[in-house]
């Protein structure tokens, strides 16, 4: 057998260099793994934060959303006149509206009696609020005064509400200093802005917030006819409405919230910096390992040059070492990342998960890290002088 393409195969020097020095390989892989895990965690937290900031937003059943231009984010929503929302009904493409109140209220943990602020949504129980149709059934119980639906995925600091509810206990506690009763559970999830959520009727909501002007709402949901173009309708509406409201498509509404966390806070920067630190630490470790590996084998490299190998061949050996390190270091980092994400999800309820783009991004960062280090370590090869080895 003599296939032209097999002919080029040679002794896999890079692989043997790495595997016949297991301790050095272990240190290098540990360093790369550490850098990879750090990047996975920091980027995962960053993306998770941005995704977590819209856990409630993305459930809304709406094509367009009205908010006050003074609203900066979910944790500082300003009110606007409810009339504005009614006005949009004049447009032929609008088929439904839902006025929503949105604010943070103090919830008393019925077990420990300590208080904590919770996100409360108020709406007319007969309106459509979320795309999930389960809610409308449960919402019927809200027509009675003083009833709330509690988010079972709220942090446990609010009390063992879900557990008690399933056990059939009657749960009564204080919300904003007034007595309320939990008549059902919903599943939304905490966000960075809110540790827990609850839903109540507009009537109850206004009673809990006596200072809130009755004609004022924080969010107006607008549903359009099937086939209507939300961008066109938005344009028309924003031209016809006064400047005390802003019209957003649902997608813009989600971006509006994410953008707040991204730009108005340094959270995005901090997590990106954390990831960058991982990158730099990884670079330093891999460079150190490869550099000392080249230095230790300099006489052997010089021998190879004396035998007739090209400097290019030796560069290739170091580059291949970098590539192998990247691949071998990435795999455990990926596995550890998956494990830690699961841990974070179970202990914080944050929607942190591996996704293809982050998995690829971290792989390329690790590859970049290893190749840069290999490139720098190659400079040492120039010192391999075959005339000095006799």
């Amino acid at each position, binding site marked *: *057998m003599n296939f032209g393409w097999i*002919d080029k*195969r*040679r*002794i896999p020097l890079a692989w043997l260099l790495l595997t016949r020095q297991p301790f050095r390989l272990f240190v290098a892989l540990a360093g790369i793994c550490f850098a990879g895990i750090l990047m996975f965690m920091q980027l995962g937290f960053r993306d998770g934060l941005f995704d977590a900031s819209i856990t409630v937003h993305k459930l809304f059943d709406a094509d367009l959303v009205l908010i006050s231009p003074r609203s900066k984010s979910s944790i500082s929503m300003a009110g606007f006149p409810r009339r504005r929302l009614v006005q949009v009904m004049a447009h032929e493409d609008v088929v439904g509206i839902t006025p929503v109140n949105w604010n943070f209220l103090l919830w008393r943990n019925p077990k420990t009696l300590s208080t904590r602020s919770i996100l409360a949504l108020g709406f007319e129980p007969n309106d459509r609020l979320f795309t999930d149709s389960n809610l409308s059934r449960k919402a019927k119980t809200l027509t009675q005064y003083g009833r709330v639906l509690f988010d079972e995925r709220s942090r446990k600091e609010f009390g063992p509400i879900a557990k008690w509810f399933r056990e059939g206990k009657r749960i009564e506690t204080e919300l904003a200093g007034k007595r309320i009763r939990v008549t059902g559970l919903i599943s939304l999830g905490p966000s960075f802005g809110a540790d827990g959520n609850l839903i109540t009727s507009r009537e109850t909501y206004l009673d809990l917030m006596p200072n809130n002007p009755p004609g004022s709402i924080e969010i107006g949901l607008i549903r359009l006819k099937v086939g209507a173009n939300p961008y066109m309708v938005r344009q028309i509406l924003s031209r016809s409405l006064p400047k005390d409201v802003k019209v957003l498509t649902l997608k813009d509404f989600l971006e509006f919230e994410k953008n707040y966390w991204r730009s108005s806070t340094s959270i995005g920067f901090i997590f990106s910096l954390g990831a960058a630190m991982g990158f730099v630490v990884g670079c330093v470790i891999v460079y150190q390992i490869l550099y000392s590996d080249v230095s230790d084998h300099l006489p*052997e490299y010089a021998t190879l040059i004396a035998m007739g190998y090209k400097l290019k061949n030796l560069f290739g050996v170091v580059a291949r070492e970098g590539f192998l390190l990247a691949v071998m270091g990435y795999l455990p980092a990926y596995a550890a990342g998956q494990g830690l994400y699961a841990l974070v999800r179970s202990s914080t309820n944050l929607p942190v998960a591996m996704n293809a783009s982050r998995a690829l991004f971290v792989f390329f960062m690790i590859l970049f890290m290893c190749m840069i280090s290999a490139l720098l370590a190659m400079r040492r090869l120039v010192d391999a002088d075959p005339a000095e080895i*006799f």
Partner: protein
Amino acid sequence: MKNPTSQNSLLFPSVSIKSLSHYFGKGTNKRRILDSISMKIYPGEVVILTGPSGCGKTTLLTLIGALRKVQSGDLNVLGTELQGSRRRERQKLRCQIGMIFQGHNLLAFLTSEQNVQMGSDLLNGYSYSERRAQARQCLRDVGLEDELNKLPHDLSGGQKQRVAIARALAARPQLLLADEPTAALDSSTGREVVNLLKKLSKEKACAVLMVTHDPRILDVADRVLKMEDGRINPAI
């Protein structure tokens, strides 16, 4: 000894040196190490170069091995003119020259077989398995067929030097340069190694230039050159 190619050998020496000089250092520290050396080595010849320490033997060897730039004089090795040569030409030439060093200079992380295959991997146009077969054959030639999978660390000094010889021969060189190949060996092992070197080079019609201090092995040479103070004394 009758050389079947003696007619050609006379026409095409493997190594041809004409008034080659070499200097180390700069300015006032500049010292002449080689002083207009002239000589020829023919295919199949075993030439031994001896002389006191520091007389420039290794320097001459590295020049012939295309490991240094030629400063002045003419140096032609296997048809390549080294004066003013390009890097690529020197690299190509090195593929055709086998080198054996005082220390064995084996790659510590490769087995004997892999070390020798580093030599045969330099051959163009052979498949991986052919090159490995070549490596095994060379190890068999030096009597190490049972040590294929040992790392240099686990071999004795004489065995290491034999692996080094196998590696040098695996690339099928036309010229073999050896710098004190027996220095690290006891006298009987040294003798064995040198005999082996001579036998294999004769079989493969490969010219050998060997530097040695050891007077007991001078008799393997077809010719002994004495060097002193950068000059080669008339051949004995």
